């Protein structure tokens, strides 16, 4: 029987606390692990079709202007070239934002940023198409572009809906015992998932199938259909394995539309894979930000004023603005408050969501401002944070659904040995290295998105789960198998999870840390319904039913499923957000503690130790959850120390558009990191009592590094990343 639940009330009891199968929360190995480590998991570019053609996108060689001519004749005699696809109206100007239900802006005759894909060269082989794309004659009229953020930031337009204000900020700051008023800047960043954006389009019987590398298939399908003028029923997207997303694959991008247009025109399957440079230049970036933070506190360290104003950049008509103050709004108290985002219009690639949009860079500013405030007050940074945990949301007065921030701070500090810290900078020296420690809090909003899943239980004690959720490395396959196994009393190996196909019930997709909780809840509801059906067949109350090892038990009676079921049972579960998200602030919390060494001669920074403690409701799989947090922490280290997507202010080109020049952390940059989870249950969040963790780890992580650098060597750098050139002149005498 199909069932749905809208989260209008807390869930009184979760079956996961009563079924006692000891499967959920356990560190179960990834169920698809053997396929991934043996190279047999098939990603989107890896499907084989007879007659497959290869497309390579042609990138605009200027940052602003108009295409006058793309001369197919200039390459058509090259061996292996099939055709040049130009469709100035249909090709995407820029990718879609996640969850949009319409196509993003289309039209590429006018070039809006350097590297914008404007045509597709199709060849019988990849080598032929690549050669053609490199050689094709492209005539373009250059226009004056807007490429210099520093020169344009005074023209930032306030985003009215982002403004939130309370109390008299100026008066509160004037009356404060201690204040901080400073500007932090963060550069553009790129998701840099290891798998480039890739799509194979197959057009058959008036139906398009796209093997695509995307995160949110249900909305991606609507975007793709809209872009191509097709009905959604004519479009299917398959993404069984996705080689990382981090926000970069939320909405559709140029390669899928180009592949689809080519496949529909040529009546042959067409594969388009972006080059690494195209991924960097023509998908999405996290906007650079300029953040002004003002804090005021009384003599006891109680915040009285909190202001967080952010300037970001984006293309014309794109309204997204990195919500850097997202967690600042509820993390700490203080009566007078101001939050505002402004957008500078630039001719640079789309700004959109990258892992933890908002907190990822907002906490780089806020949590360093808190460190500076603690120093000004002569307080311990942990104590300052503990003192300012608000009883309720400081503006709308809502209670928190669950929050273990204080415990994370206290337990994290104890385990790390924080009490050994000397608050005075540049006191600890080991050989050529100044050693210091720093900390920061973590917070990330929790969300629930409408999501459906089908669960089929067969009499032989096997189950199949189907939903269009993706597993972008997050552990979806595994946790959905665990939830099903737990609730139906089966071993994990008896559950087959099928994901990443729009032929399956639509899910939340992967993004915003909501995939596990949303899709997991839909699977929970379907399994709960199956349990009720079995109980009915046995004539007992569902609460008296015990399912374990493929047997149904009640009282002293135990019967195998095949005796009870004459055929497979199927249920579709659907979860929807409801009043719980309007009545409670829902977020995960944590605390990072970090030790760095700063080279006394060169200013090189090495992270030596990092330990982070998180609480995010029930942890569904300790192993995969730990990996999610480790990944977030490393993203934070990258943001603090190395990641800096550089735009040439003369022509808008991205100077470091590949993995040799855009520096994501490598193995040698990362010591053995530690993650600890605290026990928590959130009955207001969903029936699993779980909250999202995919982005919590990055929130505050880089700030802990920055604060440790200050403690090590006494240099505050508010312009990320903290590269050695920004430290070297200010280092204490070696």
């Amino acid at each position, binding site marked *: 029987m199909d069932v749905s639940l809208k989260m209008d009330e807390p869930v009184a009891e979760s079956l996961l606390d009563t079924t006692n199968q000891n499967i959920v929360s356990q560190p179960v190995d990834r169920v*698809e692990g053997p*396929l*991934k480590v*043996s190279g047999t*998991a098939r990603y989107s570019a890896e499907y084989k079709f007879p007659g497959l053609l290869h497309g390579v996108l042609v990138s605009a060689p200027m940052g602003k202007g108009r295409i006058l001519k793309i001369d197919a004749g200039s390459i058509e005699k090259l061996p292996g070239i099939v055709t040049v696809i130009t469709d100035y109206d249909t090709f995407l100007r820029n990718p879609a934002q996640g969850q949009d239900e319409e196509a993003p802006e289309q039209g590429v005759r006018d070039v809006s940023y350097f590297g914008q894909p404007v045509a597709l060269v199709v060849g019988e082989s990849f080598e032929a198409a690549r050669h053609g794309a490199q050689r094709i004659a492209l005539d373009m009229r250059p226009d004056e572009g807007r490429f210099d953020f520093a020169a344009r930031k005074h023209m930032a337009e306030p985003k009215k809906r982002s403004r939130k204000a309370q109390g008299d900020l100026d008066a509160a700051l004037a009356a404060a015992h201690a204040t901080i008023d400073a500007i932090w800047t963060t550069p553009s960043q790129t998701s840099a998932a290891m798998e480039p954006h890739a799509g194979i389009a197959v057009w058959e019987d008036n139906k398009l199938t796209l093997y695509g590398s995307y995160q949110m298939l249900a909305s991606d399908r609507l975007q793709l259909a809209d872009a191509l003028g097709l009905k959604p029923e004519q479009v299917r997207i398959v993404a069984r394995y996705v080689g990382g997303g981090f926000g970069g694959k939320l909405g559709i991008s140029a390669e899928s539309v180009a592949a689809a247009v080519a496949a529909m025109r040529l009546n042959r399957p067409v594969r388009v894979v972006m080059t690494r440079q195209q991924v960097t230049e023509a998908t999405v970036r996290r906007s650079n930000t300029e953040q002004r933070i003002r804090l005021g506190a009384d003599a006891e360290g109680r915040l009285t004023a909190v202001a967080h104003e952010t300037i970001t950049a984006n293309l014309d008509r794109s309204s997204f603005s990195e919500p850097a103050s997202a967690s600042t709004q509820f993390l700490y108290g203080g009566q007078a408050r101001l939050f505002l985002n402004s957008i500078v219009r630039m001719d640079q690639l789309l700004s959109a969501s990258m892992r933890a949009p908002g907190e990822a860079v907002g906490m780089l500013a806020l949590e360093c401002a808190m460190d500076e405030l603690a120093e000004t007050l002569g307080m311990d940074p942990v104590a300052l944070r503990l003192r300012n945990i608000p009883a309720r949301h400081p503006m709308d007065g809502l209670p928190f659904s669950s929050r273990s921030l204080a415990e994370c701070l206290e337990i994290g500090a104890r385990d790390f040995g924080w009490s050994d810290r000397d608050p005075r900078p540049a006191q600890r020296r080991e050989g050529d290295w100044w050693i210091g420690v720093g900390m920061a809090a973590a917070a990330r909003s929790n969300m629930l998105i409408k999501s459906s899943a089908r669960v089929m239980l067969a009499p032989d004690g096997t189950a199949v789960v189907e939903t269009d959720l993706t597993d972008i490395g997050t552990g979806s396959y595994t946790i959905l198998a665990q939830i099903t196994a737990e609730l139906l009393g089966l071993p994990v190996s008896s559950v087959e999870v099928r994901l990443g196909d729009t032929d399956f019930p639509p899910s939340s997709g992967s993004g915003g840390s909501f995939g596990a909780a949303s899709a997991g809840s839909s699977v929970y509801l379907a399994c709960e319904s199956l349990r009720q059906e079995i109980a009915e067949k046995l004539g007992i109350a569902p609460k008296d039913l015990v399912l374990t090892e493929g047997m149904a038990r009640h009282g002293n009676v135990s019967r195998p499923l095949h005796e009870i079921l004459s055929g497979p049972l199927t249920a579709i579960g659907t979860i929807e957000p409801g009043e719980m998200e309007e009545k409670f602030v829902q977020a995960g919390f944590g605390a990072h503690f970090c030790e760095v060494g700063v080279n006394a001669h060169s200013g090189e920074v090495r992270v030596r130790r990092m330990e982070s403690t998180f609480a995010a409701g029930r942890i569904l799989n300790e192993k995969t959850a730990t990996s999610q947090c480790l990944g977030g922490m490393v993203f934070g280290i990258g943001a603090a120390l190395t990641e800096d997507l550089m735009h040439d202010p003369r022509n808008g080109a991205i100077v470091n558009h590949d993995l040799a020049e855009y520096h994501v*952390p490598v193995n*040698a940059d990362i010591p053995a990191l530690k993650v600890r989870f605290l026990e928590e249950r959130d009955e207001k969040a969903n029936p699993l009592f779980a909250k999202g963790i995919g982005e919590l780890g990055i929130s505050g992580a880089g700030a802990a590094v920055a604060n440790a650098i200050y403690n090590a060597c006494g240099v505050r750098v508010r312009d990320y990343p903290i590269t050695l050139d920004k430290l070297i002149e200010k280092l204490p005498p070696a």
Partner: protein
Amino acid sequence: MHITLSINGKDHELDLDPRTSVLDALRDHLDLIGTKKGCDHGQCGACTVLVNGRRINSCLTLAVMHEGDAITTIEGLGTPEALSPLQAAFVAHDGFQCGYCTPGQICSATGMLEEMRAGWPSHVSEDLLAAPDLSDAEISERMSGNLCRCSAYTNIVAAITEVAEARDEAV
């Protein structure tokens, strides 16, 4: 061009465009999809394979240069039903998330452990002539040609260490 490539102990006859890299020959012509393309410029390590036992970036070398070489890909190290010790350790330690860099990491680690066994020093070796330590620093340094954006580095080092220590005990 007509060539014969020896891959995972088996000869394959191929007619290839001379511009075809080893990586594209594997992926597009032999359906050996385990070797991944992350950058096509030798910057990420996802395409790492072993050629005559030595790890290389297969995107940076042309297939026509490798007639007579013994090429080993991830598919040659183990299968889902019979994983190699490193493959099994990567699963047990969760040394990956999305899985895209993983075959390259495992091929690289396979070659790297042989380099250590042969006594090759690295940038972080204190003594260039002594047998290298199996320390986290040595393993991290030697694995830094393989990027992992999911950032499973801590777990990758743990997985490799477990296998290396077991192998040392066996010796």
